[in-house]
């Protein structure tokens, strides 16, 4: 499972979000927020 980790109020380049294509969404969690 691929995921991008970012903090509250962090900006990340879109390229770091693996596959915004919804068809592979089940294999991808777009974001996980860490403390």
């Amino acid at each position, binding site marked *: 499972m691929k995921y991008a980790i970012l903090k509250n*109020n962090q900006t990340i380049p879109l390229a770091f979000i693996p596959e915004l294509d919804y068809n592979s969404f089940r294999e991808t969690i777009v974001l996980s927020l860490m403390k």
Partner: protein
Amino acid sequence: MDAKQPLPSFSKHNLVFEKFEREIHENFGIAYTDHPWLKPVRYPFNRVDKNSAVADYPFFAIESEELHEVGVGPIHAGIIEPGHFRFICNGEQILHLEIQLGYQHRGIEQLFLEKKKLFQRITLTENIAGDSVAGHTVAFVNLWESLCKYQPGGDLQLARTLALELERIAMHTGDLSGMCTDIAYQLGSAVFGRLRTPVINYLQSWCGNRLSKGLIRAGKTNFPFTGALADELNKMFDAYEKDFEGISEELFSLPSALARFEKTGVITTEQAATIGTVGMSARMSAISRDIRFSHPHDLYKALNHQPVIKHHGDVYSRAQIRKQEINQSIGYIRQLIQNLPENEHKDSLLVPSANSFTISMVEGWRGEICHCAITDDSGELILYKIKDPSFHNWLAVALSVRNNEISDFPICNKSFDLSYCGHDL
């Protein structure tokens, strides 16, 4: 991707996704297989199915000679926001409540894309929900400063933290007044009601507006927090606390009030976790959800915030949380204003980063406020998504009244005090 292609629903695995999938279906036309019921959420102006209308909302119905339906709103007896509540009752007992919203939709997310000036966008933010100006504006400015790679100084962080906690105190006090009204406890209604006034009047003396409109700005402030304002704030709380503790003692020891509060409008921990409540609506059922604790920003990192947790999920728990959070917020404010940071003059904001994604979360007085933005290759916004805590929590109101008397609906509703316009956007 092709919007006509149906997609599997997450809702059958986790009900927390249920309303989000309805929203995506309404906004983009994407159909989900296995979703329980893809009902309209807020009838946005730019919804895909223009034939879908407020008057045609598909309420859940039960056919029975023993049951009757009661419709309340969208125009209400008290001066509150419009929303429709459809009860299915057996005599006085509520079997089911369905809440239909959308009457307060203004198209704010779309306006964020159409209005290009920062001042226009902050004005939009201030008007998402008038009782959560500080909550939404802090979420927006934190997001915008992150996009512009700007780090606010200690003075700006102090102002934002103070504004959030003052808004929390003001709204919790007003809610305790409203809850007293709904159980016909006139003394509590009057005293808590008038106690909200000095708090919001303080905001007016600080920034000229009782709801803190104009106070929070990205990259700057037009109303620096001074030593004189700190003295005024301490004096205000000295007077406030005396009367607040007095009336709280009266309310929480009054048998007739407790009889109305206790075991009324219960949401179990399991229900709250299943539907994904946030903020107070989670903490009253023993679920620790508080952005000040989980994802601290501004001066919350220094405060080491500990959420107030209650366990019974009833009206009494929601009243207790408010009382204790008021005490907690006053303590935080007094602590923060002991040593004021220097007013830092920093460089101006840069242009927003191109091809970027930003998320910003704040603990408003109701719960988690979330703003997200995506920019294109020139740094212009192509998407702005706003999530008010009420988006999660309205279902909790509907569940809380089951098997209660319909005469307890007002106190159940008021004990949550959710936002119609925050939900409808």
